[in-house]
């Protein structure tokens, strides 16, 4: 056990590429967590996707032992937090487990807008924030200017900012000293009833579900019977430990400490982020504040390109779900896509990550249908239904009115992009609530329908602001909306995978755009193909793909047979990746591209 005065729990806030992972690696190396050889790869971002996208999906911690200049040895818990708005709740739980943060800013590039949202979140958790100016050995480094930016834009005192270069190993000890001297030690009472926050959990094939905890009061140890206060289940702890970053078994984790436990839990959905863990005997009187039930907000269908892969997809989704309780899935049948799953996600990035992992780690070719949110259908008979899938849209005459989820979005954006950003929000039926300026950057608060946001809003935001805008949102409930189901018909047959629920005012423009896109994406056939967008029986947009008129190889003699046949075989193979609607073969790329349409058109 370590006394509270010798514990520091902190996270690192940084813009992508400002050196968060490198700094974390240096801190681990300096305190002896890993050998140089083991350090050859970045340690904290485990998944390929995390490394490639420079984002963290799962919270990770590492425990460091540091002997400070004052001669005392401290236990430092470094928490790596997820960094995307889809995982805002997970971030808030990770931050709640710490008392401070290092704010890493690139000495040449200065403060980036995206960092602000995280800094403010950290400030809201009463964190002590230590500015670290990284990459000071770059020729373009201007630490004084960056210090001024930190003071002007964020409002933090930067006079004692640590100057470092994680890459070159400069200032690493200064960072560690600042952690010890500036970040306050945790509070807590080891003799009180157990209150531990479930920070994150993941599935390990050898250990079962591993739970990352921050003990607030009391002590957690092997053999203890514990209870999840929100989840309601009880478990026997069989292992207590920490990551250094290698797994190390401990006797106990006491108040103020961060570590992991295992309790022979097989189903990750029993371990809810933010839940309070207490003992079965002598439990805590009340749960810790801040727990939220995580609900999927974006839904889409995932179908195997090759129908024969359905079982493989089921298997793979089940395996992924072992590690991620925040997405849901149930079987779905589509007239043309065959058997697949309707899946729910925390947001679009979450959707993309799951889709990418299925493709990459499980080697599956997938067709993803248009993302949709959960609508509340109020029927004329007084009942209410939740609608996850446009294909289940009820008969219009039976609908009284429809409600859709709304969000409040807070967007930080440099001045120069403000105009285009306001237009984007306006186009997406946004209601402006607030607009303030913070040192050359605007902070805008908008209320927006979520269905306008799941539809490529984030991509547009990034492209409009050239990556400088940051975006954070939370749901603010349901509101009535003038919503209609728009169907896309190819050769007079509805393509269920392309139908979507849209606001009546936006339907025509979106329908026209969709038809134009499909016209370019569907290859010409032997006959002409009408493409229509329709609401109910009314066609609101139409395009026609002209029939193919000439396609003939001029020369084919005895020496050409093999080559020409191979070309045909290739075509046949390509055909497997297409779907038939009204005897029209639609390539899989057309689905994906049509659904990923921008506003340019």
């Amino acid at each position, binding site marked *: 056990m370590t006394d509270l005065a010798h514990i520091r729990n902190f996270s690192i806030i940084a813009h992508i590429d400002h050196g968060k992972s490198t700094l974390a690696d240096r801190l681990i190396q300096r305190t002896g967590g890993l050998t140089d050889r083991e350090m050859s790869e970045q340690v904290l971002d485990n998944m390929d996707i995390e490394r490639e996208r420079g984002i963290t999906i799962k919270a990770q911690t590492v425990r460091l032992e540091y002997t400070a200049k004052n001669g005392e040895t401290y236990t430092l818990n470094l928490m790596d937090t997820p960094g995307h708005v889809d995982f805002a709740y997970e971030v808030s739980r990770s931050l709640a487990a710490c008392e401070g943060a290092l704010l890493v800013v690139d000495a040449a590039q200065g403060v980036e807008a995206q960092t602000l949202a995280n800094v403010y979140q950290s400030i809201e958790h009463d964190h002590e924030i230590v500015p670290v100016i990284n990459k000071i050995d770059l020729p373009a480094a201007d630490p004084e200017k960056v210090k001024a930016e930190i003071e002007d834009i964020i409002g933090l005192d930067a006079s004692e900012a640590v100057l470092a270069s994680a890459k070159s190993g400069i200032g690493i000890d200064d960072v560690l000293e600042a952690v010890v001297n500036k970040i306050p030690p945790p509070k807590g009472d080891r003799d009180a009833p157990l209150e531990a926050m479930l920070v994150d959990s993941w599935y390990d094939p050898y250990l079962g579900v591993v739970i990352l905890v921050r003990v607030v009061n009391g002590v957690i140890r092997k053999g203890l019977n514990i209870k999840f206060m929100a989840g309601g289940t009880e478990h026997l702890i069989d292992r207590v430990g920490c990551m250094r970053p290698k797994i190390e078994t401990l006797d106990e984790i006491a108040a103020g400490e961060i570590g992991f436990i295992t309790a022979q839990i097989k189903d990750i959905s029993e371990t809810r982020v933010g839940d309070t863990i207490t003992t079965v005997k002598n439990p805590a009187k009340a749960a810790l504040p801040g727990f939220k039930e995580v609900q999927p907000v974006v839904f889409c269908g995932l179908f195997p390109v090759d129908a024969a892969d359905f079982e493989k997809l089921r298997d793979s989704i089940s395996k992924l779900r072992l590690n991620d309780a925040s997405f849901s899935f149930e079987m779905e049948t589509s007239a043309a896509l065959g058997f697949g799953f309707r899946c729910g996600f925390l947001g679009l990035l979450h959707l993309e990550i799951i889709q990418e992992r299925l493709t990459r780690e499980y080697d599956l070719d997938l067709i993803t249908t248009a993302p949709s949110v959960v609508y509340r259908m109020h029927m004329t008979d007084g009942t209410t239904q939740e609608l996850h899938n446009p294909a289940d849209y009820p008969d219009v005459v039976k609908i009284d009115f429809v409600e859709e989820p709304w969000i409040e979005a807070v967007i930080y954006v440099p001045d120069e992009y403000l105009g285009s950003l306001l237009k984007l929000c306006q186009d997406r039926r946004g209601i402006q609530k607030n607009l303030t300026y913070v040192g050359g950057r605007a902070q805008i608060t908008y209320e927006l329908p979520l269905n306008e946001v799941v539809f490529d809003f984030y991509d547009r935001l990034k492209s409009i602001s050239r990556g400088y805008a940051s975006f954070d949102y939370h749901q603010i409930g349901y509101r009535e909306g003038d919503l209609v189901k728009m169907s896309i018909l190819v050769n007079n047959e509805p393509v269920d995978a392309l139908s979507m629920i849209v606001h009546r005012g936006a339907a025509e423009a979106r329908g026209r755009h969709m038809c134009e896109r499909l016209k370019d994406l569907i290859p010409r*056939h*032997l*006959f002409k193909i009408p493409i229509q967008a329709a609401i109910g029986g009314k066609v609101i947009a139409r395009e026609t793909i002209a029939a*193919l*008129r*000439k*396609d*003939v*190889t*001029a*020369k*084919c*003699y*005895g*020496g050409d*047979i*093999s080559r*020409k*046949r191979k070309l*045909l*075989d290739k*075509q*046949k193979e390509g*055909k497997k990746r297409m779907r038939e609607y009204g*005897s029209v073969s639609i390539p899989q790329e057309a689905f994906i591209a049509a659904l990923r349409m921008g506003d340019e058109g």
Partner: protein
Amino acid sequence: MPEIAQPLALYVHWPFCVSKCPYCDFNSHVRERVDEAAWRKALIADMEYEARLTPGRRLSSLFFGGGTPSLMTPGTVGAIIEAADRLWGFADAEITLEANPSSVEAERFAGFAAAGVNRVSLGLQALDDTALKALGRAHDLAEGLAALDVAQRHFPRVSFDLIYAREGQTPEEWEAELTRALAFGTEHLSLYQLTIEPGTAFATRARLGRLTLPEEDASLGMFEMTRAMTAAAGLPAYEVSNHARPGAESRHNLTYWRYGDYVGVGPGAHGRRGGMATTRERLPETWLKTPVASETPLEANTRADEALMMGLRLLEGIDEAAFAARTGLALGDVISASGLAETTRLGLVARTKGRLWLTDTGQPLLNAVIARLMA
């Protein structure tokens, strides 16, 4: 096995050319000197190898292709014809030689005829000096026409090739050119729309945007005009690009399209015999060292696909009985029922009296129709 009695076609590949044409993707090579005696010996040895594997079959045709086989001396051509006669024997054989219409080669025409060649196919390619230059041809029009004249005097059967739908060519220009071509009175014409083949100089130019072919509508218009004009002149199309006086079709090429057996010797030559696909090393020098065939057995399905792909090129279409005999599969079981229904409904194919064939509207869509029937 009724197949044994079927006549056999022999293809002999002469891989050398004076220069390489920018549109040509055939196995042709430019060499400063060729040891013709060694080549003669090797080609005959290759024929002997094939003859051992096709006992009891007689040749219905022999085709000298290339490359430029008219660069061979009449002595070599004669020796190969003699060897073919000795190894298989001819059954009233059509013996064709592809020739360049140059003055040098025209001087050999008498010798080729004396050696036994009874049909010549001239690579005239265009009746316009600018076009000939653009196509990278070594001859000019006057030389070409003179060679055609010599050929018509020496050979009982003469065909020539033209390439149309060339860059910048208008339908009117092609109409005039084809009118002139039909007036020469040959019994056979091969009229190819210019196609950009991968790996050619034209492919590079097209990729760089320095070569643009006529749009779909214009090229379809020229295709249909070609059909109408040749029919009116008594040389109707019998295959996508081949036109002949009825009865004067290329017997050798019909063997390919009817998916009959053919033996291919020489570098890069392909063959189909007894359910096997044969190939040879493409590079002349490599082949000369190891003139050994590599052989792959073809599955019934593959044979059926090939027979379908080749047979539909012919206006006569596919004889279902012959198809079944050649592939061991019934045509109705091989093609997609929905594909057949769709293409029939669209008026692109017809299936009557034991034949499947493409209609006039179906012909220019051959590739797409085949893909639909095979899906």
